[in-house]
């Protein structure tokens, strides 16, 4: 029997615990297991995004036209500055986390408390920023028209600048009442109506001869195609639906899948950040009441640190895939 024991530490039973495979404690090893599986989950999502994008490679929305908002700067096109700021916030909260782990190694409780607190604040700011980003995405800016064939038409002026529906849509004396459950004959209702009807947009377009239509198709110059006035009128006659902002069914930016993936992947990542903040708060209070001081080890801080860095790692990829490429 003795011969089968292969560890140097023959006092311990190999299968009864006490050994640390690969030199990592049980909790840390399990955290790595979790991180590997979660990393594969996220790469599945991002690869699915890549799949759909390759499928509609000629009509996919251009990211720097979609995310152009910055707080307190209305009407200014500021592509990417805001997400870059969010990236900095998350990287910085990663730094404070790793500083907390470092202080834990030296058993400096007060330092761990301060750095954990900063990490939590950084995480909260990030989740808030994401909520703001979603708000802008859902609200939309210009509005668009969906044709009967399912493609999307946007409006531009002679210089190619985007024009919002509100700037030209006519007001027609038509009344279209929203169908609600209380007015339905059966269990009937409908999603909230767009601000303008298709007829109003068409009439407004006719009254503004300087307007042109931009389709989803990307040209050789990597810009969206702008049609001539005649072609524009022809395409607009096939209008079917007014799209404002974004939801899971359609969005004013282009391909329907684009908004779905945006909501799903950034939402799933935001959920990770949120749960990371909750776990950080629990550990923060444990540090405060001196649990790890008594245990003489701050390894628990190290484990939540691993999770927190992983969230940062995923964001680095989401940032590239959604905003840069």
């Amino acid at each position: 029997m003795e011969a089968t024991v292969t560890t140097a530490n023959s006092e311990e039973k190999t299968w009864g615990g006490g050994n640390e495979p690969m030199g990592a404690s049980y909790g840390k090893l399990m955290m790595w297991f979790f991180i590997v599986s979660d990393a594969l989950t996220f790469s599945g999502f991002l690869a699915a995004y890549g799949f759909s994008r390759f499928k509609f490679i000629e009509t996919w929305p251009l990211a720097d036209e979609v995310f152009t908002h910055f707080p307190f700067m209305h009407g200014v096109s500021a592509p990417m500055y805001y997400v870059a700021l969010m990236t900095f916030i998350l990287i910085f909260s990663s730094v404070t986390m790793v500083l907390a782990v470092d202080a834990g190694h030296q058993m400096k409780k007060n330092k761990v408390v301060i750095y954990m607190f900063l990490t939590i604040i950084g995480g909260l700011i990030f989740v808030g920023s994401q909520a703001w980003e979603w708000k802008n995405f859902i609200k939309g800016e210009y509005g668009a028209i969906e044709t009967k064939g399912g493609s999307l038409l946007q409006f531009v002026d002679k210089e190619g600048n985007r024009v919002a529906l509100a700037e030209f849509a006519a007001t027609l004396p038509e009344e279209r009442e929203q169908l609600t459950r209380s007015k339905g004959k059966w269990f009937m209702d409908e999603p909230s109506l767009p601000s303008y009807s298709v007829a109003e947009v068409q009439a407004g377009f006719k009254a503004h001869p300087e307007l042109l239509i931009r389709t989803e198709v990307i040209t050789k110059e990597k810009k969206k195609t702008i049609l001539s006035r005649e072609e524009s009128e022809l395409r607009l006659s096939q209008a079917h639906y007014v799209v404002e902002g974004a939801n899971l069914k359609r969005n004013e930016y282009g391909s329907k899948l684009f908004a779905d993936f945006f909501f799903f992947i950034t939402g799933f990542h935001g959920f990770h950040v949120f749960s990371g903040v909750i776990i950080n708060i629990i550990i923060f209070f444990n540090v405060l009441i001196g649990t790890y001081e008594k245990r003489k080890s701050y390894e628990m801080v190290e484990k939540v640190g691993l999770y927190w860095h992983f969230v940062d790692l995923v964001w680095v990829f989401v940032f590239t895939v959604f905003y840069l490429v």
Partner: protein
Amino acid sequence: MSHEHVSNIGRIWKVFGILSAVTIVEVYLGILKPDFLFMNDFLSMNLLNWIFYALTIFKAYYIVYAFMHMEGEKSSLRSAVVFPVIFLILYLLFILLTEGDYIYEVFKNSTIKWNF
């Protein structure tokens, strides 16, 4: 568990500097989009996007190896985590992107114009 409790603060700030610098370069390139990178393709993706992916993996390396302290772990743990992830992701990307490109060709060259 490592037994030396040396403080790593210098290294942490250095890595923070590297990650910030790379992010600034990414945003700068993303806004500028220099034509010689943006208009030239390599393996059906433009050079700018290749640069973005390379920089992303560069950042990922520093997050995992410095912040998650992978460089301090045993080499068996390092390989057990890193290799399956890299292999499976490359495999998945190869399959899905090839298939996506194939469907694009079908939409383009046949009578089906819009399906779902």
